[in-house]
């Protein structure tokens, strides 16, 4: 997954501060967190940075698919093992007698469930990573054997 440093390297690095941040590194982090868009950087609109702009656009394209918590699912890599479904603490709390003991969820309060052979994300607001006071939980990503789930 793309990192802030990769984004920073493609930014003008002229510290014009017109985007509202004090440095281009801060803007890179904001772009990564999807708080700002490429159009918010006036310097980048200059034709001499057209190459970098296009590269950045390409680099940030996968982030558009991410959920509000930054979760990206690659369905083509997922084989529906359900490790993330059972490991997710929110799922276990929602259905302790199902997800807690390894069974698939029945209700609709869970965050992750396997549907049609691949994992699906729902109820994003329940995720520990949601909102400003998020907890950097990674139970679903570390238990994925095929790296089909990742966070931005």
């Amino acid at each position, binding site marked *: 997954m793309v990192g802030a440093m990769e984004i920073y390297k493609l930014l003008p690095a002229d510290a014009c501060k017109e985007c509202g941040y004090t440095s281009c590194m801060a803007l890179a982090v904001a772009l990564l967190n999807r708080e700002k868009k490429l159009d918010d950087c006036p310097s980048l609109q200059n034709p001499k940075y057209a190459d970098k702009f296009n590269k950045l656009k390409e680099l940030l394209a996968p982030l558009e698919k991410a959920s509000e918590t930054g979760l990206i699912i690659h369905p083509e890599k997922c084989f529906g093992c359900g490790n993330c479904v059972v490991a997710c603490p929110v799922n276990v709390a929602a259905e302790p007698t199902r997800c807690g003991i390894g069974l*698939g969820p029945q209700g609709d309060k869970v965050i992750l469930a396997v549907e049609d052979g691949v994992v699906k994300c729902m109820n994003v607001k329940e995720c520990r990573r949601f909102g400003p006071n998020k907890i950097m939980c990674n139970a679903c990503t570390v238990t994925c054997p095929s790296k089909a789930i990742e966070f931005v």
Partner: protein
Amino acid sequence: MVVCTGCSLLCEDIELALATGAISQVKNLCRKGHGHFQALFTERTMPKIDGQEVSVDQAIKKAADILRNAKHPLLYGWSNSTLEAQRVGIDLARKLGATIDDTMSFCRGILMERVLTGKLPTCTLDDVRNFADTSIFWGSDPSNSHPRHLSRFAYYPRGEKRQKSYEEERTCIVVDVRKSATAKLCSNYFRVPPGGDADFIASVIAVLDGKIPKYGDKKRMIELGTILRKTEYGAISPGLGLVSSIQDRIELLETLVAKLNEITTFKVVPMVEHYNTRGFNQLLLNDTGYLNSVSFHSGQVTHGPENSVIAAAKGCDAALVIGSDPLSSLPFGTAKCLARVPLIAIDPRRSLTTDAAKVVIPSAMYGLEAGGSAIRMDGVKIEFEPIVKSDLLSDEQILKRLKEEI
């Protein structure tokens, strides 16, 4: 709720919605099972004789003629049939004086024999979930072969005595020739070269005896010894990799398990591929005293490698293949021998074997179109009902009709 017959875990928590001619939505089913169920709507077999479409009755009659006239018929497959069908199949073999063998006789059969005869202590997967704090996957990769094994039983679920699960209380050890998908998830991965499992077992026994191991990284082996000694309830899941590596020296595994059981509790749950292989082995063992490679020729029950599919294919003059594709999966020499004899294939789906068969009899797919019971990889009997109405005959009905015709 549907039972998935895609692998020997027989997952019972599948929720399935059907639309006309397709599965509209299915929950909790892994990709392997999803593919298995989706195949219901593609590549189905048709009743055929010599490639020409006929009625099911004609196909059954022709199959009965072939079997009746054969002197040394071979009945092969059985791993993808229910217990009821397997029972009829064993009776049919006895009636025909045929050789009967399953898909595991030349690979994991030797391990299954030790488990079923009680030489290796075993437990159910529910025990693994509730009590096991150490799971060893030896020469097996459940992430690919049994996708839900880790999430349902071995590593991630909370159990009766393992409430903190993988986070604190469970350890997963993988011993394999390559860093498999399962090995990537587990912190303890031990790489062995192909054929090096016997030396690895010797080293583990040495470490458990308090000696310096001769093989492998000494420090890591001692760490492994410490984990095994501290284990309260361990489960070893040996796969094809271990069995192929140690082959006839399966007593090495017995020695290791016995040594571990002197210190703590360790059980063996063999990793079985097809959904009812263990069921067939159990039935044949109860019936004849042997779990595969049995011949009923001349009314006597004989067992031995000469009756395994590899050897029997060369001497048989007709073969009935049920729920298996030996022409794709068996060695070329054996497949060639089978392709030369009149072949009867009973299968819900098209395969190389059904393409080459003289007689093809389509059967209903278990789990969706036909019900019955099967034995899970750990010996637990699971029953399931059909959920789709189908005019196709089940394996059991086909075999009963064959038996009547003969």
